[in-house]
């Protein structure tokens, strides 16, 4: 029994060691990034996590100014999100709220350029997968396997002709699917502008502005120690989350996964904060209290990584 297990382990380890990044797979990855940026399309996709699934409609009109995109959730309440180069608007009918995140400085929203794809190989092995037909498109699979347990792995299926991403699966170190996006219908080509209009019902809804501004948290006495290997700080801002006090946000990323650290005073909150970890698909949210502040860490990374970043947040009274 244990001998079989040992042989199996050896086999797995050998298989792991042999997997290597190939230039062909990296080219494919660049092709996907370019397609995401250049293509106009409309389609329907299913988001799956655990035993839950939700269907949404998506439309994108490419343009010189970065394009316009719209996402409509088709199941349950009709939530919608509109994105332009300068702004993201979330329409939430339950609370009759529009959340607006204006990008005063587009540089603060870093985009991954196809030329930067090579640096992903520091933390992921990028290899070719099988070919398969998805929603009528002949697709090529690309597999990104993480080199450590700090991040998830990804399997991407892209249209062999255009490079458009038809399916994306996130998996943990045991190969278990954390979440999956799959197009069930997709049309690539020109998109009528009326498909990208904001919902008419949203008139009179409350508008919440994020009011993003640059910030330096170290001046205020905050530090995030011993950052996760491979995760660099890419953003440090203050913003509004609701109509309350401003919240500090720092974002760390390895080029594919990202983790945000939010810090806000506990005083003035209506209800006592709940300390612990919440998960949805590949997203983990860890909440803890530091120096009478609420620290919330949100990441598309394993719970242990999100928690590890959260546990290094410290406050020292500035001198």
């Amino acid at each position, binding site marked *: 029994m244990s001998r079989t297990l040992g042989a199996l382990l050896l086999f797995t380890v050998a298989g792991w060691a042999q997997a290597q990044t190939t230039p062909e797979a990296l080219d494919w990855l660049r092709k996907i*990034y370019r397609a995401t940026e250049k293509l106009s399309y409309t389609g329907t996709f299913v988001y799956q996590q655990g035993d839950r699934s939700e269907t949404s409609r998506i439309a994108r009109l490419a343009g010189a100014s970065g394009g316009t995109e719209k996402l409509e959730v088709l199941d349950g309440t009709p939530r919608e999100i509109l994105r332009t180069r300068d702004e993201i608007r979330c329409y939430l009918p339950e609370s009759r709220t529009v959340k607006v*995140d204006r990008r005063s400085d587009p540089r603060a929203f870093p985009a991954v350029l196809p030329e930067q794809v090579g640096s992903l190989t520091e933390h992921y092995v990028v290899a070719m997968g099988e070919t398969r037909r998805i929603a009528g498109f002949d697709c090529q699979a690309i597999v990104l396997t993480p080199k450590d347990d700090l991040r998830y792995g990804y399997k991407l299926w892209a249209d062999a002709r255009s490079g458009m991403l038809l399916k994306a699966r996130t998996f943990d170190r045991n190969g278990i699917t954390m979440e999956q996006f799959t197009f069930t219908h997709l049309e690539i080509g020109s998109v009528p502008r009326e498909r990208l209009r904001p919902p008419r019902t949203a008139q009179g809804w409350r508008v919440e502005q994020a009011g993003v501004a640059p910030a330096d948290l170290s001046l205020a006495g905050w530090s995030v120690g011993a950052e996760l290997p491979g995760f660099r700080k890419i953003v440090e801002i203050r913003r509004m989350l609701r109509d309350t006090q401003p919240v500090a946000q720092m974002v760390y990323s390895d080029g594919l996964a990202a983790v945000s650290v939010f810090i806000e005073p506990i005083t003035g909150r209506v209800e006592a904060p709940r300390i612990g970890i919440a998960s949805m698909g590949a997203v983990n949210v860890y909440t803890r209290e530091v120096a009478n502040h609420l620290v919330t860490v949100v990441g598309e990374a394993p719970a242990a990584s999100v928690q590890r970043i959260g546990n290094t947040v410290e406050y020292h009274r500035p001198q």
Partner: protein
Amino acid sequence: MKAKISALMDGELDAQELSEPLAALGRDVDAFETWRTYHLISDALQGRAMLANDCLRRVVARLAEEPVLVGPLPADVARPERARWFVPSALAASVAAVTLVGWMAFAPQEKAAPLLAPVAQVPQPAAVVAAARAAKDAPARLPMTAATRDYLIAHQAFSPRNSLQGMAPYVRSVAAESAPVKP
């Protein structure tokens, strides 16, 4: 791997050679058992008082209480003389191990497997400390609420996934609170 673990014990590895056996110790139960067995052999051969049955557990408990960075010294740090006693001959090691394990089998001993958990999850010494600290106060499992959504929307704007996948990942930030549809 056994030879590497032996070299690690003897402090014979360079700083850059450390990561592989350390990662194996965190990941691979067999490697960890080897590490443990070699230490038992070392203690037995040097006539030191035998390691108490629950020594490992006590060390892990102490680590959890006192998060101090622990790890093998790099090779360029002056090595204590005792490191030389153990000749890493695979044959000698196996013979000794078999003898010792055979003898140990009669000693009253608790199963070691559950004790591995806090150490086995993470490869780096710093991570061992973090995991030990985390294990002490394992966080409560919380549901995703509408309040969490605010953070998800704020986070998603900065996710590099947008460059790869367009707007689709945003669907998570506006996900319904209750399970919408069963597939």
